[in-house]
């Protein structure tokens, strides 16, 4: 970067699109990854890379080009490609992109930790050592990842936007595994690496591994307790299926015709909010629109979906600050800071107490939509599935497949824990873009098991 900061680079990049309606976005990732398997470190990766995305708007069409060749030759080439793309698209007639946004006030946030940004590999080493030691004590092997990163995003636009935002994130997953394949799981995501307690994670994961042989659960409908990780996965999918303003406008979304109507139990209040402690906040979206709190489901009533500039214009409203890429993703906007309000249960045990026979799920795996319009999902349980009998977690179960609607599960929700946890991921399709759902665990009276691995 030659002493040039990210915003200065974005402004220099923008000069290559002078005279155009244009935006230059700089994203710089610095990160460390330490993977481990069988209680040994297996892969260590350090990344330091800056890329520039040039966006040009011509007659309602956007053209984009990206490069990590940040000298003037590379930037000029990317600018030319973006202009050519937008101009070529415009030959097909006027497009629907209404124009880049105007500058607006962005709020400071709690999403940056200087110590984490130092990316000290010794922190990773200590975390792995703690996890290995705790699993060794339990006669188990440790598998997982520790990672920390700093991502700086800067946007400069022909409308005068000149903003930068730096965030940090840290994440650790521990899977404790016995030689016969029984496994337990724990994960933690936070703004600061210091908040990741590797020893505790390994202890939680190890405690989910029992010596009892797993039983098989027949397909059917069960009362379920979903631990935080499982709830986070369901809500993450709901984000794209129900709250995507493009799908909603095109009558493909799961909340079409339901805004203002009851879609979940009264105990369900879901928002997209970066101001709440425990989230991974950002100041603005990929179009430079400020992030603001937005109620999505309030007391079980659907209140809103999210928009970027393009989809807001289609819907006749304003962007809610949820663009995922400069100019908006072709697949539409999504909420990336979901917060599900907690309830009144003090513990997981309290959630299980009313259940005569049901299911406890630690996490869900390989979830995908089956019928998007109904938010119908399928996926497997993994790393700790248990039978609940007579109000308590009992025998382990072979993993089961569920096929059910995320909205139906929320509608059947009876109680939530007071404590929320951040269920997060650090990268999306190869780029570091930490997102997370802050959510409690919950008990739902209906959860459809459609098969299993036994």
């Amino acid at each position, binding site marked *: 970067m030659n002493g040039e900061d990210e915003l200065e680079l974005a402004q220099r990049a923008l000069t290559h699109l002078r005279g155009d309606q244009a935006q230059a976005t700089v994203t710089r990732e610095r990160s460390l990854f330490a993977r481990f398997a069988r209680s040994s470190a297996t892969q260590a990766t350090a990344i330091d890379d800056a890329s520039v995305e040039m966006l040009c708007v011509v007659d309602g069409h956007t053209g984009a080009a990206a490069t990590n060749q940040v000298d003037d030759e590379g930037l000029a080439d990317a600018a030319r490609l973006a202009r050519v793309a937008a101009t070529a*698209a415009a030959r097909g007639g006027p497009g629907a992109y209404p124009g880049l946004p105007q500058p607006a006030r962005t709020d400071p946030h709690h999403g940056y930790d200087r110590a984490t940004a130092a990316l000290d590999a010794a922190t990773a080493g200590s975390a792995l050592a703690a996890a290995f030691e705790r699993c060794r004590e339990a006669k188990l092997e440790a598998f997982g990842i520790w990672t920390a990163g700093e991502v700086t995003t800067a946007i400069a636009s022909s409308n005068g936007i000149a903003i930068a935002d730096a965030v940090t994130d840290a994440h650790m997953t521990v899977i404790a595994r016995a030689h016969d394949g029984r496994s337990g799981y724990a994960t933690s995501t936070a703004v600061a690496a210091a908040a990741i307690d590797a020893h505790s994670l390994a202890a939680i994961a190890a405690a989910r591994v029992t010596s009892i042989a797993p039983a098989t659960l027949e397909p059917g409908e069960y009362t379920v307790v979903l631990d935080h990780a499982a709830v986070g996965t369901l809500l993450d999918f709901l984000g794209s299926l129900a709250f995507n303003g493009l799908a909603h406008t095109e009558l493909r979304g799961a909340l079409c015709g339901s805004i203002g109507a009851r879609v979940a139990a009264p105990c369900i209040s879901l928002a997209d909010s970066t101001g709440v402690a425990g989230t991974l906040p950002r100041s603005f979206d990929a179009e430079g629109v400020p992030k603001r709190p937005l109620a999505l489901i309030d007391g079980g009533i659907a209140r809103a979906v999210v928009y970027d500039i393009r989809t807001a214009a289609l819907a006749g409203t304003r962007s809610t600050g949820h663009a995922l890429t400069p100019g908006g993703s072709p697949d539409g906007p999504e909420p990336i800071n979901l917060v599900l309000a907690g309830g009144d249960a003090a513990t997981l045990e309290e959630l299980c107490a009313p259940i005569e026979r049901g299911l406890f799920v630690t996490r869900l795996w390989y979830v995908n939509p089956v019928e998007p319009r109904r938010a119908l999902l399928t996926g497997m349980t993994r790393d700790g599935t248990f039978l609940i009998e007579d109000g308590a977690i009992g025998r382990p179960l072979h993993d089961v497949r569920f096929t059910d609607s995320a909205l139906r599960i929320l509608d059947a929700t009876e109680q939530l824990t007071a404590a929320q946890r951040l269920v997060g991921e650090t990268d999306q399709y190869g780029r570091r873009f930490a997102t997370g759902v802050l959510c409690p665990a919950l008990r739902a009276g209906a959860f459809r098991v459609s098969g299993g691995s036994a």
Partner: protein
Amino acid sequence: MPPARGHWASACEIDPFALPLEERLELLLKAEELLRGDPRIVRGVAESLAIRTVTAFASSDGAAFTQERTECGGGISAYAAADGESQLRSYPSGHGGSVALAGHEHLIALDLPSHAPRVVEEALALLSAAPCPAGRTTLVLGDEQLALQIHESIGHALELDRILLGEASYAGTSWVSHGDVGTLRCGSPKLAISADATLPGGLGSFAWDDEGVAAQRTVLIEDGVLRATLSDRQSAAAIGTTSSGAARADGFARQPIVRMTNVSLEPGDGGTLDELIAEVSNGVYMETNRSWSIDDRRLHFQFGTEIGREIRDGKLGRLLRNPTYAGLTPRFWNSLEAVASAPAWRLWGLLNCGKGEPGQYAHVSHGTPPARFSDVEVGVAR
């Protein structure tokens, strides 16, 4: 083996990067225009992509080579919505269309505009089609859906790093053990699977993998019996064998890990798709993937396709919407009754094969003809 040296470039008849963008867009605009017209079509998509990747590799073993790969392809999709129902229909496949290790000639050959009217017609018809019935029945799978079935339940399951628990932290493990090689019956005698990094047009083709191991063809399953796994140098060494040349990284900032190359089902003697269907008195035909899920051991899967059709007395019948099927990998492949013959074999590319942390997305291809399976659970979501 001598160190790898030299240069290799994939075949590219028409260089997409030498064409004016307008020329490439013209084809898409024409196809997209043909998707419009009916107000129930709420979204029409015509898309293409062209990727050129140039890599240079040098190692302390003495290897020094460069490779240039050009990938090209595309597809069309129509989203229909009405009366609380939403349906998707695509050509030639879902998830971005058909992509091959080829030049612009591959996109031209797909002839997207000529398929647009049928895509629209089927998307609209699906809105009011009967739901896929639930139960166990004979299932005939189109080749594109079968490509993903091979990918998920065989390809990933035979990655040696997974088998040795190296990916247990994220992608998972496998229902296969490395000690099973040579003895494990994975499927019926009709099942023959190879991994071939030399296949023309395959997204998993190259001259050398990302550890400098030469591209090769490996028989993975023969007559239904496991013969080999996919490996890199590290995993192969761990079990005292040599790499199958399957180490791949998706960029300069990622480590090579065991990935599929072109993992394919060999053609059988079942004739054409029509001949596969002609043998079925009562069953379901499904094509074009829409939904996929499989457990972390690659054992229990569930797939959904864009479209299904009833099969009655050897003929395709009424349209079925939201078709799904599920099963356990070895049981499913043991129910393989018939594989269509060589003329029906096609290569399908996938761009979004995720694995590793930080995330890596491999481009792989799978060759397969349509095939028929007995006693499969369908209509899972009902």
